[in-house]
């Protein structure tokens, strides 16, 4: 389940800290790891970080690319800090999201909280 939007993700961190998430950046790169913490700017700290399967992003495989330095088959990056402003999506584990709560939160947000 992919959720764009800072407010909703920030409110659901409590179900996600310690869970595996995949962070997709605005430059199309995707990084998977264990969510350590998140702040109000959506800065994300991950542990056990690795790059998502290269095959999913074949067009990004270039000598100077992120993938070249971090072969996805290895846990080459442990602790990682991702700037909130470069996050496009955070992919959540489907079983970790309560859809009813999410709908309620969306309605509250639309009404101005």
């Amino acid at each position, binding site marked *: 389940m992919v959720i*764009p*939007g*800072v*407010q*909703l993700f*920030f*409110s659901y*961190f*409590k*179900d996600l*800290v310690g869970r595996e998430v995949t962070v997709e*950046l605005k*430059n199309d790169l995707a*990084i998977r790891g264990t969510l*350590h*913490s*998140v*702040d*109000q*700017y959506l*800065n994300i*700290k991950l542990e056990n*970080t690795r790059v998502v399967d290269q095959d999913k992003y074949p067009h990004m495989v270039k*000598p*100077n690319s*992120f993938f*070249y*330095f*971090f*072969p996805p088959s*290895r*846990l*080459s*990056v*442990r*602790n*990682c*800090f*991702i*700037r*909130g*402003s*470069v996050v496009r999506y955070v992919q959540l584990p489907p079983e970790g999201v309560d859809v009813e709560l999410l709908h309620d939160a*969306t309605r509250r*947000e*639309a*009404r*101005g*909280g």
Partner: protein
Amino acid sequence: MATGLRLVTERAGNGVGKPVIDTDNGEELMLVHPGVSIVLGNRPPEFPGTLYISNKQIWWLSDTDRAKGYAVDFLSVSLHAVSRDPEAYPSPCIFTQIETPAVDDELVDSDSESETLNLSKITQMRLVPSDPSQLNMLFAIFCQCAELNPDPTEEEESVHNWIFSADQLEDEDEEDEDSEWPVFQNPTHPIGANGNHDLAHSVFQLQINDQRFEDAEEMEQYDKNGHQ
């Protein structure tokens, strides 16, 4: 706005010198760490040099060439990480990804600016300390300084809240009304996709302006009886 990596040719002080810190604008040094080599993109490592971390940017100054140095502001650092996998890079290092600025190639027409142009295209930078045991400390400093440099917004938030657990969030529900639902200033990610249109305010104003609701009392009772 990301400015990317830039060349630093000016220094303060004598001898090897130090970076020119913009103290007038609140910049201050947080850490000075010697014995660091820098690797830009897939260029060979440059060494020896000293790493300077301020609350606004990362500097690397060559110990041997006073005219050679590089700097990048934290606004341009998309991510940073500790890299220990020898397959990724032979030496343990801090890996950073740099957001490059949009460069107008038409503006650059001389050889002297080509290095500047090349640096502005650098998307990856590694900092390799001589002592790998310092990596965690360096990573922590990078995190702290990155947190000090959120994207500029209209509203200033002085409290920086890292949330680590559900309990922490529940406590903050009671204490700080701003923490759970931060007012989100970036208009490019609105819920409801109405840009800056504030739906809640519009509805409220509609109710105020609508004359039909003023004499509601008698009508309400009628409605209640009528709709039972």
